[in-house]
């Protein structure tokens, strides 16, 4: 069994700052991490390694420095790591990204067929949740998004049963491999790797693929050229011309009273709702 995990190196969003004058992202010095949602995908793949002896290949597309994310993934126990990096990929939107990754996965499958592709639910920098389904559609893989649990895998029948989070419930789905799974968050905990894995990760020679190496059939479908979406403008939201009305008072008690008076005067509906529910509660208490 062979599984591929797609991960992305992202800036640690907690530490992103916007330049107050130019409204540009200040990337310098912002540490990068593996997209936190991808850790659930990595752990689920590694559990298949533990249980079924699956080989785990981790794949990322990004600048040369994205090799750090791959090396980190290797310390958890992944077997192989491939960095897809080429100037041709720069400026890719989700459609162009899924094209490049799908091409690379096809190439990976030539040495050993791929049974499951894992992705995180979404990334914390793009938050689109579009690349995983894009890969599945392009490679004609059965698409299983928001998976909360892998219930069973029958390797002989090449069948898999999963729980998929839907609105208001959970779908129990049975499908055939190859398939693509995007893992829901909080479904597992990424392991601490072993010392052996750490040593191996440090020594491991990463595979680095350009578009040509990855067998990308048509470079015009990559990068900015292959992206139908165009970012026209990036901006900080304008502050409302009317700032919040300050509620002041001699004491906190006076402040609180002033706030309630102000809200009730401006929104009689809020006063009515609160009083009605308070009255209903008191009747409930009396009965």
């Amino acid at each position: 069994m062979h599984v591929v995990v797609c991960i992305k190196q992202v800036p640690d969003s907690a530490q992103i700052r916007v330049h107050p004058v130019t409204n540009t992202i200040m990337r310098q010095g912002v540490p990068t991490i593996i997209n936190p949602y991808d850790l659930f995908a990595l752990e689920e793949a590694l559990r298949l390694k533990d249980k079924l002896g699956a080989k785990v290949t981790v794949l990322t597309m990004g600048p040369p420095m994205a090799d750090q994310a791959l090396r980190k993934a290797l310390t958890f126990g992944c077997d192989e790591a491939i960095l897809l990096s080429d100037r041709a990929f720069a400026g890719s939107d989700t459609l162009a990204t899924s094209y490049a990754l799908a091409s690379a996965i096809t190439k990976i499958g030539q040495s050993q067929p791929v049974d499951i592709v894992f992705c995180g639910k979404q990334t914390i920098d793009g938050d689109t949740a579009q690349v995983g389904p894009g890969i599945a559609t392009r490679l004609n893989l059965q698409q299983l998004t928001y998976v909360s649990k892998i219930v069973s895998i029958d390797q002989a029948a090449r069948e898999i049963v999963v729980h998929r989070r839907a609105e208001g419930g959970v779908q129990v789905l049975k499908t055939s491999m190859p398939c693509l799974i995007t893992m829901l968050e909080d479904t597992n905990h990424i392991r601490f790797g072993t010392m052996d894995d750490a040593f191996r990760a440090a020594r491991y020679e990463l595979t680095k693929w350009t578009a040509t190496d990855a067998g990308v059939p048509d470079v015009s479908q990559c990068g900015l050229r292959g992206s139908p979406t165009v970012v026209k403008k990036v901006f900080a939201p304008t502050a409302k011309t009317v700032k919040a009305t300050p509620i002041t008072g001699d004491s906190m008690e006076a402040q609180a009273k002033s706030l309630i008076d102000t809200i009730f005067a401006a929104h009689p509906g809020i006063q009515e709702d609160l009083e009605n529910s308070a009255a209903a509660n008191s009747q409930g208490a009396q009965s």
Partner: protein
Amino acid sequence: MTEPATARPAGRTTELDERLAAYKGVWVYIEMERGHVHPVSWELIGEGRKLADRLGVEVWGVILAAPSPANQVAAAEAFAHGADGVYLMEDPILADYRTVPYNHGLCAVVNQFKPEILLVGATTLGRDLASAVATTLFTGLTADCTGLAIDMDTRSMAATRPTFGGSLLCTIHTLKARPQMATVRPRVMAMPPRVAGKTGQIINVPLAMREEDVITKVLDYILDRDSNEAQLAFADFIVAGGRGLGKVENFRLVTDLAAVLGAEVGGTRPLVQGGWIGADRQIGQTGKTIRPKLYIAAGISGAIQHRVGVEGADCIVAINSDPNAPIFDFAHYALVGDAVKILPVLTEAFRARLAAHRKSI
């Protein structure tokens, strides 16, 4: 599978080729799951109506479902919320949501009737489906939009969304492919008024697929017992806390005020990451979008990621010790001070006020 409707974008000019210029009209995917329409569908018809009026075209809904009288009811609701017509695809294969038949069906309707804009709710179903459809059609898809407009120079849709983890906004266009697709999260757009008795046209479209050709099977559907999600998104009163509360023990002050108001409680992303509250109580771009009558934010600085999730509230009260906190840019009322000290006082003031009313009746 369905043939791609559009050629790949060859360059980056703004000229729309003739074949794509034939794409007309604004569509909304009406999300039906297990006989129920997700309300985000009506919110999108309201938004689609505005875009269509600007373009001078019609707004149509698309329903994919198993044959059922409920579909006619859903179509009538679509008309009541402002749709001019509904494409209805009924087939037993569509009884449960599965990516392959839904993708096949929606792409088939798009390729036959050619809309210039297709809006989809950013639910688990909608995100799954919209991604597959956009990839199949080789077109642009902008996720989780917080604003939609038309650029009249190019007749293209300007889709605005938070970017870089919610610290900035960006406006995205799809210039060289059709339809222009966008997803919008539930409760981001206002519910349009419902006009009873409005009618519209229904066009039936066949799915043309066999169950044998669908590999994925639905074995079961386990209903959630706990529906906190719906409670937060549709709650009229919400009290939420942020990092300004200092430590997890202080979150009780939020819960106390909420109890007096009969409000739901929520919090920011850092609180979820810190394990103070469950992910289902997260308010903001990556959590729940809320539209309550009254929202009280305690110790929340008001980053964009939070702002876009709460801006639909009728009345926002912010308590923060930093007078320059961004939350005061969009809150209606500002209490500058330590939320940990102010919250108990406010809770008591509300309790006394509402108790006084209780006695008076």
